[in-house]
């Protein structure tokens, strides 16, 4: 790409905020009232993680995997694809995370929680609060319609942030499961900044917050890392 240094983010974001949030609105319309179920599942999953059952969280991981796959298929594959060629790439990214969570967490039982041993309990809880009950109110807070609210399990950003929260509450650091949601926060932030969204800072901040917490945990206890 000649003169690559002259390109800015806006050269690669080919849609407006108006079109983007309308895609979210139509995505919400097409799935309603599944959002209530997703929100309920999100709260239940958060509670289950905090209760920290003694056995591996297979069911939780299966749920999270299904939700990542659902976002890949329904949001990116069906709605976002109408305004951006990057939808296929992002769909694959979410599908990869779904596969990883399913394999490592649900099939291999490689993810478990313990109240006495959490990677980063405080940061994990904070991210869950932001993603599950917090994210839906972002839309009206910044002047958008409720119908454009982003909900865990239905929209990409809160799904990724909630996953980071769950992973920080686990008893062992799983970098292979953290990578995609951290990366997604950065990608989303860049995209939202490109369209001038006032909430562009939220996903990358969540990613950096999770990354910092994970690195701190690694330094504190090298045995945490895998």
């Amino acid at each position: 790409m000649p003169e690559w240094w002259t390109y800015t983010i806006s050269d690669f974001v080919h849609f407006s905020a108006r079109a983007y949030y309308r895609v979210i609105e139509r995505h919400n319309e097409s799935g309603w009232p599944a959002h209530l179920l997703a929100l309920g599942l999100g709260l239940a999953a958060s509670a289950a993680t905090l209760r920290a059952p003694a056995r591996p969280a297979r069911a939780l991981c299966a749920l999270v995997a299904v939700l990542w796959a659902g976002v890949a298929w329904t949001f990116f594959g069906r709605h976002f694809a109408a305004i951006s060629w990057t939808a296929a790439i992002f769909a694959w990214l979410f599908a990869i995370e779904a596969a990883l969570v399913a394999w490592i967490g649900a099939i291999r039982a490689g993810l478990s929680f313990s109240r006495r041993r959490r990677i980063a309990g405080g940061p994990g809880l904070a991210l869950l609060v932001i993603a599950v009950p917090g994210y839906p109110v972002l839309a009206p807070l910044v002047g958008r319609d409720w119908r454009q609210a982003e909900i865990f399990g239905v929209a990409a950003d809160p799904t990724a942030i909630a996953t980071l929260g769950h992973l920080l509450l686990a008893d062992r650091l799983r970098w292979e499961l953290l990578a995609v949601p951290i990366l997604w926060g950065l990608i989303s932030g860049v995209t939202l900044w490109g369209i001038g969204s006032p909430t562009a800072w939220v996903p990358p901040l969540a990613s950096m917050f999770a990354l910092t917490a994970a690195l701190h945990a690694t330094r504190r206890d090298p045995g945490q890392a895998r």
Partner: protein
Amino acid sequence: MQREPRAASLAVMGHSTVTRRSILKALAASAAALALRPLGAFASTAPVLKPIPSSGELLPVVGLGSWITFNVGSDPGLRDECAAVMRAFFAAGGRMIDSSPMYGSSQAVIGHGLARLGRAAPVFSADKVWTASRQEGEPQIRRSAAHWGVGRFDLVQVHNLLGWEAHLETLFRMKEDGRLRYVGITTSEGRRHRDVEAIMLARPIDFVQVTYNVLDREVEARILPAARERGIAVIVNRPFRGGDLIRSIASHRLPPWAARAGAATWAQLLLKFVVSHPAVLCAIPATSQVAHVRENMAAATGSLPDAALRRRIAAHVESL
């Protein structure tokens, strides 16, 4: 293929050498354009027209871009809003709409608008070929035309010079076959101006599209003079820097002398600056709002600034 330098083209508001042939061509093209406009679509004040140097065909000095603004996917409500913008555009005397396969669903949304307005919409269809593959060029142009719902494009441009050597061959061949009317190249934001100039001097293109506005005036040095010398029509993109320019000066009061340029708003003053350059055929600001397209088209009417007023406009905006 070398091209002989042409005499500078006539501008309706201007000057320079003309030929009888170019006048007859221009009159014929205007009559054809007027015949296509549905009753009731005539603006109370018609836009200023300038001729395409290679043919004499007259076009209004303000067109309509579709970058970002028309990429609304399959949303029926947003598509109808874009159709309303197109309706207002044509009603105000507009003709050139510019798009590209790079602009997502914009082409299909334009097609939706044209279908809603009826095929009598007097559109001058300007699109682009945007692929590195020589073989993919023609199929892509066909797909684009299908999105628009047009049999052929008036103008096809090589987008950002991607694969330009192969695609110019294709486009010249298609023009010879009557499958398009004009051939052009594009760039934006000051990129690859040397390559653009070299192509302008070496190939018989009809159009060149570049970024030009009151702050980004690099093209004044070489490309605009080369366009006049070679008889190449200039389309201007980013006359408002994507809206950033207007936003950055909107809080400042419009100077009282702006009325001398026939401008009642900053957008109109900035557009008149661009389209008043003798080498510029038209600017293609993009918008998703009917009010803005009417404001833009109003800039295409009335008087255009002369050189002294243009310098004053540039100096004033730079000082803000």
